[in-house]
């Protein structure tokens, strides 16, 4: 495992930001961490980067305890955060020039390629860059040394679609040769590259699995009944977001299984004319789960 969190807790005064969080990020994966605002994603990431100290538990990155991350490990970790503060008075080129010698694996060709792709003005001072430009700048400083791990904390937040595309294009230059841990609400943008997902709720991990497994078990189901549809009083707990319209009942099944599905639905709802189960986009999985968590429907 490239990243390993074991029973991590973090308290801010009386507030539990993380509660016994355990997480494993396999090498080569693009691991998406999602959850509502305040779920603990940024806290988790800052802890991994040794920016904050856990109250309890252990975390390792590249096999090294995060509290003991040395320049050797940091030279293999790229980090981009929406709140990253870079020296404002330095120009883009000057700062990249400053950073270059810190990384033995810095690739000048990749740097040029990135700068071109991200359209960064080399002579402009960092403090004069827009938020989007600054995020691209952070990425341009995180990729050229071909990090073994790339940690991205809400990198797409507040970016316009064009900049998002540029950002994602630059990111995909690296996908495949690096392990990526990304926290983002912009799931539509990251879905294509994501291989693993984890869902955090109020400092607790609800689940983590591969995207393939998640998409296989979460389906949007539409049941066409012979008679009028109504929301069953005793619906299975894995059915989320149930709605009824005419003779159609819709829901998201988070434990979808084709086996005996028709019989189970018929037993609950009566005569079924047609069942359609569609794969769900990551964004819809997130919104459904987030809504359910908010309304405390989701089975833990």
């Amino acid at each position: 495992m490239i990243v390993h969190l074991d029973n991590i807790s973090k308290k801010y005064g009386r507030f539990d930001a993380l509660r016994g969080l355990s997480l494993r990020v396999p090498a080569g994966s693009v691991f998406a961490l999602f959850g509502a605002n305040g779920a603990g994603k940024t806290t988790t990431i800052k802890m991994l980067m040794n920016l904050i100290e856990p109250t309890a538990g252990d975390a390792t990155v590249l096999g090294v305890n995060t509290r003991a991350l040395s320049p050797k490990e940091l030279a293999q970790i790229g980090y981009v955060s929406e709140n990253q503060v870079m020296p404002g008075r330095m120009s883009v080129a000057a700062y990249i020039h400053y950073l270059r010698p810190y990384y033995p694996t810095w690739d000048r060709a990749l740097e040029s390629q990135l700068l071109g792709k991200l359209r960064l003005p080399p002579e402009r001072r960092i403090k004069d860059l827009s938020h989007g430009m600054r995020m691209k700048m952070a990425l341009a400083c995180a990729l050229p040394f071909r990090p073994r791990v790339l940690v991205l904390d809400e990198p797409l937040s507040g970016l316009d679609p064009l900049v998002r595309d540029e950002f994602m294009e630059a990111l995909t230059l690296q996908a495949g040769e690096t392990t990526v841990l990304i926290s983002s609400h912009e799931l539509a943008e990251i879905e294509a590259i994501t291989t693993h997902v984890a869902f955090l709720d109020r400092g607790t991990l609800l689940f983590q699995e591969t995207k393939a497994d998640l998409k296989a078990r979460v389906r949007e189901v539409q049941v066409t009944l012979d008679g009028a549809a109504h929301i069953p009083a005793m619906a299975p707990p894995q059915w989320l977001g149930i709605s009824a319209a005419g003779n159609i009942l819709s829901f998201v099944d988070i434990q979808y299984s084709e086996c005996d599905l028709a019989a189970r639905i018929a037993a609950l709802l009566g005569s079924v004319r047609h069942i359609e189960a569609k794969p769900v986009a990551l964004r819809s999985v997130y919104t459904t789960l987030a809504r359910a968590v908010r309304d405390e429907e989701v089975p833990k």
Partner: protein
Amino acid sequence: MIWRIFRKDWSQLWPLVAILTAIQFANAAFWFALGPFEEPRGLLLAAQIVSYLVLLGAAVLITATVQQDALIGVSQDWLIRPVRRGALLCAKLLFVLITVHGPMLVADLAHGTGAGFPARDTIAAALTRGAFIAAIFDLPVFAIAALTRTLVQAAATMLAIWFVVAIGIAAGILVRSGAPPPFAASGMQWMTPAFWSALALCAAAMIIRLQYRHRAASRARVILWGAVLLAPLLSFSTWAAAFSVQRLLSADPASAQPIVISFDPGLGRAPIAPAPASAGAVLLPLRVAGVAADAMVMSDRAFIRLVGRDGTTLYSGRTTVNIGYGDDFPVRTGGAGELRLHQRITFPDRVYKVLRAQTVRAEIDYSLTLFRVAAVNTIPALNGAGRFPAFGWCRTAVDADGDDIALGCTKTGTPPTCVSIALENPRNGRRNPQTPYCEPDYAPLSPHIHPDALSHFGADIKFEDLQQLAKYPVDGSQLADARVSLRSYEPAAHFTRHLVIPAIRLADWAAEP
């Protein structure tokens, strides 16, 4: 890596460095232009302001240097870069050394050599000043900067520290019922800044280590505020405790052993009160024996206790209400080994009224310092100039009023703190009364750090009374032949004496005009 960080900081901060360098050179130029007499007054005022701007500018530059890669917060880019913390600290310290102390050293050397002092003395004075400023100013500022993210936060922290220390000192004054701190206006007042400096240096070293090694801001803040709370500690100590420490630091404790103080009723009442009489003042006749020739004794503090016949303490307190240096009896230049003098003791009015007619036992505890002559030099009274190891570069001139000889001296390092100055005419052997200039500093190490590496001192020596009430042996008509005699004294021993007068009636020794 150190040099890389240094260059990065330089690219960000060079305008600030340029401004501070300009201020430092302006400071040296102003003090050079002022010369030994520190005139004109307008330039002196400007020089004083600029000298404080140097410290302010240095504090701003140090803070900005540290906060280029702030240690507080979780958003700074450098935190996720492979930057060695030790290298970062070294780079910052090197930056401060080169950008703050480089120009300071050059300005001090230019000033010193420009004023004609030998290169060796100038370099020693400049390096000493730089080292002390680095230890007691730079590092504490550095530590505060390491605990804050912005200049405003750093300034607010410094103000808060000042405020807490001031409250602590005020609490000490309150505890002492309004009396000033125990060492105020004495040669031992070095103890408070020395304690503060040591405390600040230790706390700064610990904070910097914690922050650069572990980024343990909470623990570092505990150390900071712990040190701040400890700062007013000396304000709650006692004179006796402090003087016992000072005695241990005596250069030659044995030299004070022959000195004896005794009650000397044979001297009689003071014919003329040395100061305006007041209802509670007593002029106690004393004999001080065993003072070596050319030495002098100064009473740093004296405490009197009046005891009734039944053994109860009727009064206990200091012998004076003054808070100036040498407040208990005046500085005495020795000569024949024995001095007879009247010590002025002032009692609160209500105490004096009650006790004046009673026969009481008086016990006086003296804290004394024996001074020995360190250097004697003379300089012509009229437009004289001379360079002396003890006094530096001195010049004399008649002042604008035409009644004083103005003496101005500039010296590398620390100025003499106890000097006796007299106008004398070697042709006729006449000599005016000595002008003591004594604000002694008993510090074992007393560096001169402000406003520059050169120290300045001076005095006005009277030869005419414009009111024509007093006539001086060496007057204006003799100035062409006259010379100023400078005598510098250094403390040799700090010692105590306990004087017991078994029976005394205060009224018998009351000061009367």
